[in-house]
């Protein structure tokens, strides 16, 4: 980080664009639980809470709702609520939550797989299992974070639909689509949404320094690309200071998204 931008701070890293893009997922979310999975989403959720979405609720990663916003990995100074797993699962069904999950595989319709790779009955690579992806996607807004955008992740067909995409929700009927919402996908290369007539993955913005060719080459299906693709917005100077000095002083973000 040698270059100096107009802010007077060292140049913005790719990880920091990712943090800001993740934070944007919780803009206008209101008074809901933000459930970030992964380091960059956790930093992003804290950034959103400390700036434009102050009403967000955040857990300590265990059973407590934090009254303050400590650095990632640090214990909260004070606690405002109790959310053990049983309450977390029932909160999901109330819809008052926006989760950002990871994805081992993701297709153009937003079907996500974290369960296993290969034939489910005897997988070539067993992963976590579906965990809460089915209940999340049917009940509250679910976004995805992919720290390494590649054709291994973005595939034509996922091997085990864990998180439900638009086509599968539509096929399953009105009870499946009623509260189904996939606001977007954030990767180390850009930001994506499903704002097309047929609800397929569309490039929304490129992180500065990333080319369209890079993204399409790293995506294993035909991506919807609008005529004009903006760059992901710049962090403001106060946001950069929050990320670097308050939320992630140890620079954990740079390990998840290396420069």
């Amino acid at each position, binding site marked *: 980080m040698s270059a100096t931008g107009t802010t007077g701070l060292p140049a913005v890293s790719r990880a920091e664009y990712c943090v800001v893009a993740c934070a944007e997922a919780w803009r206008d979310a209101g008074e809901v639980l933000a459930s970030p999975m992964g380091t960059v989403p956790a930093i992003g959720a804290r950034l959103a809470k400390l700036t434009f979405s102050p009403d967000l609720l955040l857990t300590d990663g*265990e*059973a*407590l709702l934090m009254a303050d916003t400590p650095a990632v990995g640090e214990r909260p100074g004070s606690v405002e609520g*109790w959310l*053990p*797993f*049983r309450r977390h*699962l029932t909160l*999901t*069904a109330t819809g008052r939550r926006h989760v950002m999950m990871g994805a081992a595989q993701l297709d153009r319709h937003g079907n996500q797989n974290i*369960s*296993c790779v290969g034939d*489910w*009955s*005897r*997988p*070539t*690579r*067993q*992963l*976590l*299992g*579906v*965990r*809460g*992806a*089915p*209940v999340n*996607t*049917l*009940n509250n807004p679910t976004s995805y974070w992919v720290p390494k955008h590649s054709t291994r992740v973005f595939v034509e067909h996922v091997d*085990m*639909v*864990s*998180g*439900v995409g638009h086509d*599968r*929700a539509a*096929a*399953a*009927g*009105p*009870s*499946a689509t*009623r*509260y*189904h919402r996939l606001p977007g996908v954030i990767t180390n290369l850009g930001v994506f949404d499903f704002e097309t007539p047929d609800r397929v993955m569309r490039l929304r913005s490129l992180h500065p320094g990333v080319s369209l060719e890079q993204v399409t080459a790293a995506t294993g299906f035909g991506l919807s690309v609008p005529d004009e693709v903006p760059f992901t917005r710049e962090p403001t100077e106060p946001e950069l200071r929050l990320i670097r000095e308050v939320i992630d002083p140890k620079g954990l973000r740079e390990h998840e998204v290396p420069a």
Partner: protein
Amino acid sequence: MTQDKTMTAEDVVGRLESGMTIGIGGWGSRRKPMALVRAVLRSDLTDLTVVSYGGPDVGLLAAAGKIRKLVAAFGTLDSIPLEPHFTAARQRGAFEMAELDEAMMMWGLTAGAQRLPFMPVRAGLGSDLMVVNPALRTVTSPYEDGEELVAAPALRLDAALVHLNRADAQGNGQYLGPDPYFDDLFCEAADQAYVSCERIVETADLLKGHGPQTLLVKRLFVDGVVETPNGAHFTSCVPDHDRDESFQRAYVRAARDPEAWPAFAARFLSGDEAAYQAAVTAFHLEEA
């Protein structure tokens, strides 16, 4: 005087039979009844159906060939995402699996406890859970909304094994950490339930310094109480002890390497619980 239900881990195993459906409390690598699991590992029990928010309990039982069928939403060690014995067992097709969503499991256990056939849930619709569990059915709301929902089937257990911070000899179990997990639900969904704990205390001492909401498991659902200090090791049992991260890393290194596993098992799992705890102490002395 209500009955004294204290017993040993071996007594618990003596009450179990091969082929049973056994629910295991805790979550991932958190407050697992590992001393009871280790007692099962030492026994001839086999052909088990295991219901668990899976952690090293599932991993060790799978590695020992004890599991015929696993009912779970995941297998994880939390600070290490993938449970190596669980992944290896799945990849060699070692057991049948009923993969469920985390919430479906909770409602399935609730139905089991409440003597209901199922609970309606939205979770599962549109996902491949409906494909890999061909027995899963939907149910249509009889009310005006007419919604079609998944009928999460009751998970009824022959036996439940849980580990708590404290209990009295009568089977009242107390958790002192931030999360009860689903241990009360496992006990209520089971025909027999066994509570291991860090320390058995007098009933009158349970609430010295703790609120009544810490009394998670009621004695009317409990058949046996076992005092097993450090019995959740290497999973966490806060505030009594955190997860033993360095031991968990050693477990994972060994479990990932078929050459290394027999030596690890011989060192830690060939003796009784006292031998296990002594070997763990020696492990940390060597590390220091």
